[in-house]
């Protein structure tokens, strides 16, 4: 319950942001979000890291680099500078541990949520896709799939017995934003499906356990005893920015880093 509430709150926030900026292309929305995330992270970084020691160790690193140039005629000194440089670098990496640990959870949560917004493309109309349900044990009765209008179920369920999985091949024939309904051993669960169009959000695998829901937060937990997860294999989305098209995570990485780098002076943060 808590996990569902948390995921829903987080997702609602992102949905609200996406809806509010729906006028802009996904790339712009991502750019703004990345920049904001960079600012937030640099602020937190500044608060939770040992800024004085980071500054000191960075100066040491820079000093040893300069030392390599200044004493280039003294191989012994240059060699010692190399060792000092390595030591200082390790110290620097060590100082990053604390802020990284603090930032790890919120950052990962943000990233896994954003995957649904920028990482997956809706199913293409006319192209087949695989839907899979994984169970903890064998199903007693034959699983049944009901699809919304616009989705054709092309094959009967195919069981992979050793993995307790059942798969169907489906094919969207029209843009759809609806639910697939699965009836297994008398219980019916649903899974959202997006095909065609430009949806703001494409949920990934729907899962049952709370821990798994932490990493797959797109939909509420299944809550049905025997079903472990339900997955639709969506195509991967790419984001095009400045004429380059690549995975959203790359852009997020670049843009959040850039904004943090640009604004670290204003926040008086040394990284």
């Amino acid at each position, binding site marked *: 319950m808590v996990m569902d509430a948390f995921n829903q709150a987080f997702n609602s926030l992102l949905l609200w942001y996406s809806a509010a900026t729906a006028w802009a292309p996904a790339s712009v929305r991502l750019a703004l979000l990345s920049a904001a995330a960079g600012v937030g992270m640099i602020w937190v970084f500044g608060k939770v890291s040992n800024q004085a020691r980071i500054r000191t160790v960075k*100066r040491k*690193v820079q*000093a040893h680099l300069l030392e390599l*140039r200044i004493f280039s005629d003294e191989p*012994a000194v240059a060699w010692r500078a*190399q060792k000092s440089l390595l030591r200082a670098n390790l110290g620097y990496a060590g100082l990053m541990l604390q802020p990284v640990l603090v930032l*790890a959870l919120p*950052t*990962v949560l943000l990233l896994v949520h954003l995957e649904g917004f920028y990482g997956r493309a809706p199913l293409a109309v006319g192209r087949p896709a695989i839907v899979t349900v994984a169970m903890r044990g064998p199903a007693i009765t034959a699983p049944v799939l009901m699809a919304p209008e616009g989705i054709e179920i092309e094959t009967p369920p195919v069981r992979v017995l050793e993995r307790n999985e059942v798969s169907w091949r489906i094919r969207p024939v029209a843009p759809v934003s609806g639910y697939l309904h699965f009836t297994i051993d008398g219980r019916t669960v649903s899974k959202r499906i997006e095909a065609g169009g430009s949806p703001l959000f494409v949920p990934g695998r729907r899962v049952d356990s709370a821990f798994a829901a932490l990493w797959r937060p797109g939909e509420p937990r299944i809550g049905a005893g025997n079903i472990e997860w339900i997955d639709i294999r969506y195509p991967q989305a790419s984001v095009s920015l400045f004429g380059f098209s690549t995975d959203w*995570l790359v852009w997020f990485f670049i843009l959040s880093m850039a904004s943090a780098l640009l604004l670290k002076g204003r926040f008086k943060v040394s990284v």
Partner: protein
Amino acid sequence: MMPVYLAYIGPGAGFAFLGSFLTLAVGLALGAASLLAWPFRMMWRFLRGAQGYKRAKVRKLIFLGLDGLDPALTERYMKEGKLPNMRRLSEQGSFRRLRTTFPALSPVAWSTFATGVNPARHAMFDFLNRNLKSYLPELSSTRVRDPQRMLHIGKYRIPLGKPIVEMRRKSRTFWQVLGEHHITSTVLRVPITFPPEKFNGRLLSAMCTPDLLGTQGTFALFTTRAGGGAMESGNRFPLSKSGEGYAGEIQGPANSMRENGGALKLPFTLKPGAGGTALLEVCGERYRLRPNEFTPWITLTFRASFGIRVKGIVRFLLTETEPEISLYMTPVNIDPENPALPISHPSIYATYLAKLLGAYATLGMAEDTWALNEQAIDEEAFLQQAYLTCAEREAMFFSALERTRRGVTACVFDTTDRVQHMFFRHKDKGGPYSRTIEELYRRADDIVGKTLKYVDDGTVLFVLSDHGFASFERGVNLNAWLHQNGYLALKEGAEGRDYLQGIDWSRTKAYTFGLAGIYINQKGREQYGIVAPGAETDALKLELAARLTGLRDEELGRTAIRKAWPSDALYRGPYLDAAPDLIIGYADGYRASWDAAVGKVTAAVFEDNRKAWSGDHCIDPHLVPGVLISNRRIAAEDPGIEDMAPTALELFGIKPPAYMEGRPLIVSEPARAQSEVAA
């Protein structure tokens, strides 16, 4: 996706990863380049016939300069067992009195140390020299000018080049000669090395390096105290009430990007707190100030036009909080991490030291003697500042020694000079500062002790000073004497003022300013000269020398001047004309008065020195020799400071050039090696 997510956890991890990786990559590349280039470098040296260390008699040479260390005091404290390291060194090697220069002034003596020539060959005779056209004093060692070309756009000026910084000391230093033979030197804070000259080695500039305002050190006192009179040096600024605290404004360098731009300013606030503390807010940072405790170096960023920023560093000291509040600020030193002017060779050396060891004073005279003279700070604060500077110097020196396997390391510590200047009046007089100079010598001895850890059989160590010390009780205004004796005339109704103002040059034969001596107002040389060069000048010099030698202070019944020398009797060289025409050898207890030093003509010839600056050395050089202590036995009984440069060359197997006038000191092998041979 999980591993991908975990690979990026915020900019911290991103920067850490990228930064570390790049640093290591650059480090490895530089290291590899250095190693790969080494054989080629050796080959190049071989092809150029550079001898390198082939004929060197030593592997390492260390010059530990303790400015102003007095031989008499050193001998006394050694005898009393207070300087165990110097004593050990003297017993193992040698202790000599080191002849100093005429005049016995640091810029002169250290220039002779570096070049091995007399002042008429290196053109350093005093801190100041006069402009022959305007008679205005100029810094003798350096000239800093605006860039030659400027782009003028409305009220803005855009420099099309760097400021021109000119070294006015002539001749060549021994480290330049060694460098040509691929023997490297690390030269730290040896006076008269600003701007730094290019050579094969590393150098950090010292004495005469200006502050960010372009002066030789202008401190600021921000205070709520009303009035207080004008200061001879330094500036007093009001603190105005602002909310719960006070507000003030720091004056920075002139805004050179605007026509008549005035000084760049930085506002600050000061809020008194509990326990005599105060909260200082400047440049967007807050600092908790504790009473009578210097802050660490604080970076000030002055913003000129077009986003140009100039950085300086200062230390603050809260000198009082109740009922008045006063805040002392050191002169704005050039930030060594981002120097506005060249202060090291290579230029990154200053940055390197700052990054490795922390910020440090870059001003030529880092210890603020004028602040104590003006009572902007007290004795305790001065000592605190002096020893903070000393600690910075120590860190640099020992860091250099750590990195020197062979070649020269030369470092000069000024603390010994500055503390003696300011505490001589207290020496052995009882009271809290009676033993300050003794303590200073003990600290100097500690530095010698630490240095000895870097001395082995292949190392020669010279601990030396440029001059000794004497007390300065009475000032002599030779302009007054010249005036009273008809050699100098004032304009009708005028009073003598600073910088030779008020003098009637058409009736003046001789004048003085600075500390060294007297100038003849010579026709064809000075703009309004009246004394013909040649016989007339020579006769006047002899006449003045004769009359001044033995000049008595009748009020105290003491001789004030032991001897006056025509400079051509002391010097030989191409820059003789720039020298004072007479060098004055004051007696112990006397010196040029403060007014005479700035070219003022006063009514009285003699006056008491009432400043804290109570020790000096600009007297008869025979009275204030320096010290030379070495781990090797020195054959010469009367070594001079001019002998050090040729000695350095000789020790590395290089024949001193003919222009060097000093003679290499013959230093024997280490004592242990000798005993082995004897056995």
